[in-house]
């Protein structure tokens, strides 16, 4: 078993690290590397988007009309505010104000939930109209051939993003749990920071998805 010790500041330092600052730096390094893998994974979808956009610009134009840009914009606002509160919660953990940080984390979590609820309404509306992915596409009044392909892209991109929002929410809940147990201090908060970085990435991806899918001209 990997063993840990407690240093002078009361930080838990695992045996492979010489001190807490090395441990923090390494942890952050790992989170950044993980974010790189996330970017690479999403980039596959963005490349697919770019390719099909160049082949069939018309299905993107027609497809985007089925999306409600107000819903998308609302979700953008929701996620942007959640990013702000996420950043603030890290700030308050650094200042040692754990209760305030907890409030901000809770708000972030709430925003994530709100995003998913809005997304749920959007999805059910589309499914109701028969704008369902692939073989299940039953919408009959499409003007362009291959309209289903647009929705294939739409569901893949927003679906994978949605899974990331859910993952992010779970991570925030985990951080809140640890915060409640008093595991974070102004000198030890790498997990909060890491989850924060992940949450910002999820937000950032949405900021790209929104214009690419909702605001096609």
């Amino acid at each position, binding site marked *: *078993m*990997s*063993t840990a*010790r407690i240093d002078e500041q009361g930080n838990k330092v*695992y*045996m*492979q*690290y*010489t001190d807490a600052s*090395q441990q923090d*730096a*390494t942890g952050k*390094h*790992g989170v950044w*590397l*993980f974010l*790189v*893998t*996330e970017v*690479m*994974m*999403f*980039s*596959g*979808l963005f490349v*697919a988007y770019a*390719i*099909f956009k160049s*082949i*069939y610009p018309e*299905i993107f134009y027609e497809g985007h009309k089925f999306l409600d840009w107000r819903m998308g914009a609302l979700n953008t606002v929701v996620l942007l505010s959640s990013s702000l509160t996420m950043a603030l919660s890290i700030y308050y953990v650094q200042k040692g104000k754990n209760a305030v940080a907890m409030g901000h984390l809770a708000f972030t979590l709430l925003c994530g939930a709100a995003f998913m609820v809005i997304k749920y309404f959007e999805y059910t509306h589309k499914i109701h109209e028969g704008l369902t*992915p*692939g*073989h*299940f596409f039953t919408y009959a009044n499409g003007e362009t*051939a*291959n309209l*289903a*392909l647009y929705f*294939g*892209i739409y*569901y*893949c991109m927003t679906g*994978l993003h949605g899974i990331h929002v859910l993952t992010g929410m779970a991570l925030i809940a985990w951080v809140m749990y640890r915060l409640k147990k008093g595991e974070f201090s102004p000198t030890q908060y790498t997990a909060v920071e890491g989850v924060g970085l992940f949450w910002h990435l999820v937000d950032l991806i949405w900021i790209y998805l929104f214009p690419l899918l909702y605001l096609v001209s």
Partner: protein
Amino acid sequence: MGHAHVEGSNYLNHEKGLWSWLTTLDHKRIGILYFISVMFFFLIGGLFALLIRLELMEPGQQYISADFYNQVMTLHGSIMVFMVIIPGIPAFLGNFFLPIMIGAKDVAFPKLNLLSWYCLICGAGIAVSALFAGGIDTGWTFYTPYSIKTSTAVIVFVLGAFVMGFSSILTGLNFIATTHKLRAPGMTMNRMPLFVWALYSTAIIQVLATPVLAITLLLLVAERALGIGFFDASLGGDPVLFQHFFWFYSHPAVYIMILPALGVISELIAAFSRKTIFGYTAIAYSSVAIAAVSFFVWGHHMFVSGQSELAGAIFSGITMLVGVPTAIKLFNWVATMYKGSIRLDSPMLYAIGFMFLFTIGGVTGVMLATMAIDVHLHDTYFVVAHFHYVMVGGTLMAIMGGIYYWFPKMFGYMYSETLARLSWVFIFMGFNITFFPQFILGTQGMPRRYHDYIPEYAWLNKVSTFGSWFIFAGFVIGLISIILAFRKKEKAPMNPWGAKTLEWTIQSPPIHDNFEKIPTVNGGPYEYR
């Protein structure tokens, strides 16, 4: 702090019981877990290979039907790629020795390290369960639209490969963080052993390329389950797009397979020539160069798939560039041996065998990168021979050499040198007998993934099948040598080869914390003066 050192205590007897192994966070033990699982998968994949060769011994159907053959061919390929060669060196030898070689007590994230092993095992389990749901017959490349249309259990198998991908990502992430952050005092990047450099370059590819495989496989699942149309021409998609996605990962993945092997060989050549490595900087940076270039060559798998002439030319030209760092390494190794003090112990034999086979694999790679020649050779047995020369002749020879080199350190026992050399003779001879004829079959035009062939190709196929039995015998002898070593328990000294890297300065087998006291490094890794 840590554990006070008890005489005779080491990482193997530090804790006892199966449970202590399944929950271990010790990089050395996780390395051993990988060792056992990879060897097991290798046995399965190897038996499939023997079956393939047996079926191809004569023209016409011998023992297995075409459908069954296609499944065996797919399983052989995907087991060997995803479960043996990709984790083979990094997750086994790399896990065990990377932290020790840079003077660290463990990898940066031990829990992720253990998780990566479970990802491999779970992924393999899911993939194997596909066999009970109709099998898989797409070839390891899962090309669309065949993989969409076939009635076999593609989704299950592909999800297995997806999970195994995380194993690779986590290993890579761990290695980069460990190399950047956990080096001992004085261990600058330019004092790291070349094996570490190779693992580091590999890790970069694992982190950057594997996520693309992940999304590709997810899209393939979505395509099969829902028909989203990305890869389906009848729905407006493009089947060839899959090939671009797939090779964007899988060509760099080829370097995930070979770069660590190049690192092992650097260690072996230096240690058994008792000489500082020639051109350390060039070898170290050539690994990084290969990793970087590997992302821009995927289109050389697709010269005849209808991509534009210009794209083909660009990919062909860049592919040629990969040859340069590879040539540098080979020449530098030979130069290292100049005026050395060379001993042909079994690890060195494997290193020499590696150079012999890898050179052939390399020059035939240049032929395949040449557009006009590739039009003729693409998807023939020439390609099969080429990648076996690189993957088996390269990577597997390096794994064998690495095992024999580090075995005394890992387990504290010596093995029978005679048996080890004998295994080399069989594997090396058998390998050439098996795969050299396949180069000729390929130039004569025999396509790959063939269950049957025209009579003109008969005698070379027969020779090839004979060769496969020699390889099998060689690996059996190798296995026996290791089993006997455990039974005879002949104690190994701390540094049987007189090598200079850090792992040889500690006890065999190492203690749980690797080092009694973290060393301070004040010189390069190969200071043979």
